[in-house]
């Protein structure tokens, strides 16, 4: 029989997970058995320690606060609003309510019989996963051991269960690779290659790979007559080889090839060079797997002869990024690949600029990427932030040297701008005389910022501390880092100032009643995902690694990874920070691609329920890591 009310409830529920993944009949059955109930403001739906009701609840209108009583205090754990489910876990687990549910404003709830849901759970795997995910977001410590990251994993599975993640699939490598013994001559090896019709041969010793010979070696070293064909293979083989375990993913393989500028990887039993060779993975294997190939793009960068080519490659990279995001490939792989390409483009721009100069650089120098680029977290086209450091020179040579590098920096930044990295509006670029300095000047600059930590100085530190050498002399940069740590050591209170800065944006808990959206300006009523969610994590990771004197970790994820090892007691927290950071970065990138902007401001009304849910899960670790900073640096007193 027709039931208009059930139809309306059906229409409402179908917008929200897990109801959105139910079969039509299943959802209609639920809708037809809903009990609608009204709760006045400040009245309880249920109280902590009560026996569970027969129903769980979905908020139709209003807002329900979930509270947990601890030591006579009611702590607000979560706020449920339109479409949120609560009070389900105790019903499934036959447990008492762990929290009280109280109406923060008058609310209309749909009470749904748990029995109907139980039937559905048994037949619908997606619903089951969603529920496990939402349970773990409702418990007090979502990153308790064992459930670590489960929320995120599950959400990801929900979204991607039908997509093909080639990047994290194990790469298909050729088993039974063609080999020659270490004692073979080049001629013997070439004969085997020709017989087996392969382009490369691995040289083995006791079944362990020690080198590789490719067609290219034969062309460039034998056919040219440089080396006799009767020599031993060791004369021309590339050695040592790069070895990996069987489980290498496509993305890892790509990165390894790009990084080492090689085209073949060896797969061995335990992943080291001292174990049995079981296969070989060539670039070709990957190209076959992948039409749109980042290593091809990098190759094109190497071969690029002018800016136009680079600009074209950068545009291609945006397409690649879009494709990756659509396939829901883990953000960590995406950011690695995009960063590699950006870096290659920057290096090429620098090389082209040096060629244009009248003279070679007078002394050693280093080109530094700053901020998000320095942290390799820049996915979308944002503006360029860079700096230049050059070797100290005698006073009489200082001016001409500085002039040279300023001129060079101007050429580089111009090129980057043409390629698509817009000029930094705050002029934080190496072409600015303030940020094109000799090593000792940089040391002084950092020392001043650290020892007179004004608000501006701290702001500068947050940008300049995240530097990454893109091109040039590694030693200069190491010197710089050492000097920064020295300065901090002699002025530890600096860390407290940095800590205060890290807490300037409160955690966005309460997001869904929207009191933490921007209050004014052009982005009124939007959520600033950069400063309210990403930056607190970036700042916390920077501060904590500095306090441990950890060098060479300039990326938020690798910083937290290192921190998790350094402070085992906070491992869970730091790992959950990584999960949050990944989700937030992915989210910002998606938003940016969708709206063709920096992705910084998010319109909450345009988010789907599962997007909201996964964002919401990210805020807890932010809040907790900020609390940790607060206690560790005694910041309450400083505020």
């Amino acid at each position: 029989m027709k039931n208009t009310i059930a139809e309306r409830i059906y229409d409402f529920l179908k917008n929200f997970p897990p109801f959105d993944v139910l079969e039509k009949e299943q959802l209609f059955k639920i809708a037809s058995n809903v009990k609608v109930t009204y709760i006045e403001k400040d009245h309880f739906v249920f109280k902590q320690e009560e026996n569970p009701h027969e129903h769980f609840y979905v908020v139709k209108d209003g807002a329900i606060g979930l509270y947990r009583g601890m030591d006579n205090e009611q702590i607000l754990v979560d706020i449920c609003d339109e479409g949120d489910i609560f009070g389900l876990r105790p019903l499934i687990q036959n447990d008492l309510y762990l929290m009280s549910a109280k109406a923060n404003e008058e609310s209309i709830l749909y009470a749904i019989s748990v029995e109907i849901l139980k039937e559905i759970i048994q037949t619908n795997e997606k619903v089951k996963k969603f529920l496990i995910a939402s349970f773990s977001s409702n418990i007090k410590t979502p990153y308790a051991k064992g459930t670590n990251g489960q929320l995120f994993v599950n959400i990801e599975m929900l979204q991607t269960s039908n997509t093909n993640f080639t990047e994290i699939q194990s790469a298909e490598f050729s088993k039974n690779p063609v080999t020659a013994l270490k004692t073979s001559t080049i001629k013997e090896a070439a004969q085997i290659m020709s017989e087996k019709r392969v382009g490369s041969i691995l040289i083995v010793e006791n079944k362990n790979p020690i080198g590789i010979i490719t067609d290219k070696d034969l062309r460039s070293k034998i056919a040219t007559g440089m080396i006799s064909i009767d020599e031993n293979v060791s004369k021309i083989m590339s050695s040592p080889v790069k070895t990996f375990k069987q489980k290498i993913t496509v993305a890892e393989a790509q990165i390894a090839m790009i990084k080492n500028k090689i085209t073949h990887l060896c797969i061995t039993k335990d992943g080291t060079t001292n174990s049995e060779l079981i296969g070989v993975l060539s670039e070709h294997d990957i190209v076959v797997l992948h039409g749109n190939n980042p290593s091809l793009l990098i190759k094109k960068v190497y071969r690029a002869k002018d800016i136009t080519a680079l600009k074209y490659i950068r545009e291609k990279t945006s397409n690649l990024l879009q494709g990756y995001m659509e396939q829901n490939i883990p953000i960590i792989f995406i950011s690695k690949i995009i960063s590699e390409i950006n870096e290659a483009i920057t290096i090429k721009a620098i090389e082209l600029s040096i060629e244009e100069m009248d003279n070679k650089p007078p002394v050693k120098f280093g080109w530094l990427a700053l901020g998000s680029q320095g942290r390799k977290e820049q996915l979308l086209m944002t503006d360029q932030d860079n700096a230049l450091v050059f070797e100290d020179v005698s006073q009489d040579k200082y001016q001409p040297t500085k002039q040279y590098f300023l001129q060079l920096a101007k050429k580089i930044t111009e090129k980057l701008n043409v390629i698509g990295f817009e000029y930094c509006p705050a002029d934080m670029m190496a072409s600015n005389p303030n940020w094109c300095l000799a090593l000792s000047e940089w040391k002084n600059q950092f020392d001043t910022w650290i020892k007179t930590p004004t608000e501006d100085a701290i702001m500068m530190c947050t940008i300049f501390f995240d530097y990454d050498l893109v091109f040039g002399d590694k030693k200069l940069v190491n010197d710089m880092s050492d000097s920064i740590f020295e300065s901090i050591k002699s002025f530890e209170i600096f860390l407290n100032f940095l800590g205060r800065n890290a807490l300037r944006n409160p955690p966005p808990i309460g997001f869904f009643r929207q009191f933490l959206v921007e209050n004014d300006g052009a982005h009124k009523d939007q959520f600033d995902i950069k400063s309210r969610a990403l930056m607190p994590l970036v700042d916390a990771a920077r501060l904590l690694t500095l306090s441990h004197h950890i060098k060479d970790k300039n990326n938020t994820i690798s910083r937290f990874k290192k921190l998790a090892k350094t402070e085992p007691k906070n491992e869970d927290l730091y790992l959950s920070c990584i999960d949050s950071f990944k989700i937030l970065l992915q989210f910002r990138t998606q938003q940016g691609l969708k709206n063709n902007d920096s992705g910084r401001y998010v319109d909450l009304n345009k988010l789907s329920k599962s997007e909201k849910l996964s964002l919401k899960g990210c805020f807890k670790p932010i809040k907790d890591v900020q609390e940790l900073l607060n206690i560790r640096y005694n910041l309450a007193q400083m505020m």
Partner: protein
Amino acid sequence: MIRFFKKKLVPEFWQNHLEKVRNSQKYSNFENIRFVAIDTETTGFDYENDRILCIGAVAIKNNKILVSDAIEIYIKQAVFNKETVKIHGIRKDGNEIKLNEEEAVIKFIDYLDDAVIVAHHTGFDVNMINQALKRLKVGPLESKQLDTNYIHKKIAKTDTYKKIFSLEELCEIYNVKMHDRHTALGDALITAILFLKQTAKYKKNNALNLIDLVNTNYHLLK
């Protein structure tokens, strides 16, 4: 002899109605009472000549609206008023499965059971139903009746004696979202939500019992 004959003439559904309402034990405990929020769509406002097009009803028990205990009955029309089609959208030969008036009324009375009727401007809906019952030579309804309009007047502090509140006005006052206006079951649901909110308010000052609520009525069956 005549009396015996008459009793024989009373149809079974009506006999059941009278017995259930008269013998119900539930009215003493508010949590056990089954309320039924009803709304009717009609061809017009003339009790004599207009007819019910649709009856929508949903039950409320212990402060919960039971979606599974709802009914939506469409009635075949002998009389038809083109003008009201614009409001309720029920055409003479629409797609809904329709019953004739007798089947519809019997079905509704069976559904009603011993429930207390809740409606907005209950007098109108009950009168329309009573007219239909009269054509079946029975009636009027003996169910207890409540009216959200009168309950509001009792709750409202200001002197609202003369004012008659429309459903829209009450939705505004009680912050009830209006969906599916002018479908019988849609209006019944709105009325039911309104009733939940009103009883919650009413409870604050008075231990809630049916007698009190029924006393908010001025001219309905008590």
